[in-house]
């Protein structure tokens, strides 16, 4: 049997473009950039699926969504069926449809994509999720209560997914969130213009409909500990999904000058605290006219694009490798370029220069060239001696990565950590060195993507379900 024996479908080589706000206009507002497919376009895009037999796209999805099945349902205009199919595996489709790097996951395996554009899986997924949010969400059925209690620490993508899966299996889940609102990085990190906060809160609301309790303002590691949750507060298992919330700095002179932000501070002030609405909202964010963002990942792109929206005249990405090595999604780099973000590549700052009052006035950088490939397979950047130069800047955002927040690991007895402070956990089950305690997402892997964290939350939920079943 070969694929050829199936009735051949017409090949439509080009992906339907995503309608978007005009680049010049959107660079100055916080409204969502990508506007989403209209119904007709979503159906047309779904019909591009060849319905091939091997379904390679499915291996590219960390939460194992049955992609061909939901695309087929959309092609048949059964949107109810399509979203139901997606939600069998994915608790946050409106989020994933927007921020998953589909080009390196499902879409990278797409048969059509071998010669043409792959099917726009993420865009169709987003259409289905938005369609449901607009018409009102039907709560999926929940299995009968098992009488078991699970504590989930952190309400980011890993925690939300783990909580949703466990709740559907009949366990009582309580999420502990340190901030005043649930969502983790989806709320504080990813900007409104990429992921509207109303969309995140709608997904969180769906979770509450499954019976999940969310206790905000609860810092595990301070107000309570993992050990206390297990021993005193009646929880049968704990999932740790506390993410990578500890900002790295470069340890260069001038880093504590006024006008230097970690990307976390810059984005949290803007997104979570709505600094862009100051003074109607109370949290200020200060932006200069020339902003340098250090780093080349998605967080750096988010910060550089945010800077423009906050009113910066110039926003620069300073990255020590070349464009090819930028770790950010190609789409994000493209969006940033369209909006006018400038790139100074193969450069790295050596000093932040400040005036007598301590305010940033410039950035001293050194030029790099690419040498031999390093452990990551990328060519190692090598500094060019004597190539230092200074750029005038009045705001600097450090976006070189984040580590795990130590509050939970430090206060949990018998929890094994690696050298970087990440929790050591089985990547297939999330099991840690401590019985009944599971972990997943960035706190295990280091900073990665929303969908990988969700995949880890899913696997841990399965393992916790099994563990609870084996427990008397």
């Amino acid at each position, binding site marked *: 049997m070969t694929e050829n024996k199936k009735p051949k479908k017409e090949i439509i080589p080009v992906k339907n473009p995503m309608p978007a706000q005009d680049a010049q206009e959107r660079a100055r507002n916080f409204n969502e950039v990508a506007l989403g497919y209209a119904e007709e376009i979503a159906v047309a895009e779904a019909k591009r699926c060849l319905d091939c037999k091997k379904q390679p796209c499915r291996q590219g999805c960390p939460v194992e969504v049955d992609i061909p099945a939901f695309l087929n349902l959309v092609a048949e205009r059964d949107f109810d069926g399509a979203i139901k199919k997606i939600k069998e595996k994915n608790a946050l489709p409106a989020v994933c449809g927007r921020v998953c790097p589909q080009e390196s996951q499902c879409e990278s395996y797409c048969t059509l994509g071998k010669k043409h554009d792959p099917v726009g899986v993420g865009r169709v997924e987003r259409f289905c999720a938005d369609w449901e949010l607009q018409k009102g969400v039907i709560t999926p059925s929940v299995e009968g209560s098992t009488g078991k209690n699970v504590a989930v620490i952190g309400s980011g993508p890993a925690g939300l997914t783990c909580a949703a899966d466990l709740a559907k299996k009949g366990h009582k889940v*309580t999420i502990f969130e*340190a*901030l*005043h609102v649930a969502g983790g990085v989806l709320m*504080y990190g990813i900007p409104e213009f990429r992921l509207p906060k109303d969309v995140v809160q709608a997904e969180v609301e769906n979770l509450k409909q499954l019976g999940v*309790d969310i*206790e*905000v*303002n*609860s*810092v595990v590691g*301070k*107000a*309570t500990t993992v050990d206390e949750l297990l021993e005193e507060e009646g929880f049968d298992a704990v999932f740790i999904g506390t993410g990578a*919330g*500890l*900002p790295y*700095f470069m*340890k260069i002179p001038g*880093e*504590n000058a*006024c*006008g230097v*932000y*970690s990307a*976390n*501070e810059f984005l*949290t*002030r803007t997104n979570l*605290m*709505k600094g862009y*609405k*100051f*003074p*109607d*909202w*109370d*949290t*200020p964010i*200060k932006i200069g006219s020339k902003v340098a963002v250090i780093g080349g990942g998605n967080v750096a792109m988010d910060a550089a694009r945010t800077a423009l929206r906050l009113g910066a005249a110039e926003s620069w990405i300073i990255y020590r490798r070349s464009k090819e090595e930028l770790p950010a999604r190609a789409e994000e780099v493209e969006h940033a370029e369209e909006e006018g973000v400038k790139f100074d590549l193969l450069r790295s700052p050596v000093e932040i220069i400040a005036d007598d*009052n*301590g305010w940033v006035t410039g950035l001293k950088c050194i030029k790099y060239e690419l040498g031999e490939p390093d452990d990551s397979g990328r060519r190692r950047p090598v500094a060019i001696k004597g190539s230092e130069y200074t750029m005038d800047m009045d705001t600097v955002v450090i976006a070189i990565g984040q580590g795990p*927040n*130590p*509050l939970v690991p430090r206060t949990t007895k018998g929890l094994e950590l690696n050298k970087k402070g990440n929790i050591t956990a089985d990547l297939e089950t999330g099991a840690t060195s401590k019985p009944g305690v599971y972990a997943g997402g960035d706190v295990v892997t280091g900073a990665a993507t929303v969908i990988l964290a969700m995949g880890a939350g899913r696997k841990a939920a399965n393992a916790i379900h099994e563990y609870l079943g084996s427990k008397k």
Partner: protein
Amino acid sequence: MFFMFKILQKRVFSPIIKEFVVEAPRVAKKCEPGQFVILRIHEEGERIPLTIADFDREKGTITIVFQEVGKTTMQLGAMEAGDYIKDFVGPLGEPSHIENFGTVVCVGGGVGIAPVHPIARALKEAGNEVIGIIGSRNKELLFWEDKMREVCSELYVTTDDGSYVRQGFVTDVLKEIVADRGKENIALVLAIGPQPMMKATCGTTKELGLKTVVSLNSVMVDGTGMCGCCRVSIGGETKFVCVDGPEFDGHDVDWAELTRRGSIFKQEEQRAIENHKCQCGCGGDK
């Protein structure tokens, strides 16, 4: 389980200094002297840190004392017993290091008198002889003299303008105590108050060679080590006040940097206050 953070009791010490007793059982269950909370009053509100002034584990309450300096503290001050604070999270930061040092001088300046109190009490309970110094700009701004007297074997009071007890700064009193007692008989100085007061105290004690602990009050957002907004150089190394502090060896603090970083949002804070004021000319708040 959802907690509401009800203001159970309000006391007005002066038109700008107020005390709240707040229902916050999770915080009260675990907090120790030296730790702080972060609160937010309403949906559009900012998150501000306040050091815990007292706690009652049985009643599940936290006491905070604050001075109205910005829009948020002004709005907070306008709240009454029976009102609810939207968000109230803690305990945050590391507790004070408490052991039997010997003789400890606890210095509280202005609204800093409040957080000094539970630390002085814990030091006394640990067997220390606790000498207290409290000071404020004037008599009206002084509070908790009675509470401090209960936990100190000796308590000295001073006002900048001499409107109460004596005229002078807390550093003047401290110098006199050290001269009287001998510096070898004082193990530790704890100073909490406005930055200029803590800096001046550290200047005095550095000359005298007296180890001094201060509690820093930086600008914060999350208070859990996530944003780094509160970072400060301590002995040349960058530390986060929220998770590494708030207490540090005062002689290691880069005071100039701390002051600069504390003023980053001064213009915005001023704008927020102006925006908050009623536009009709009555002089009241919106």
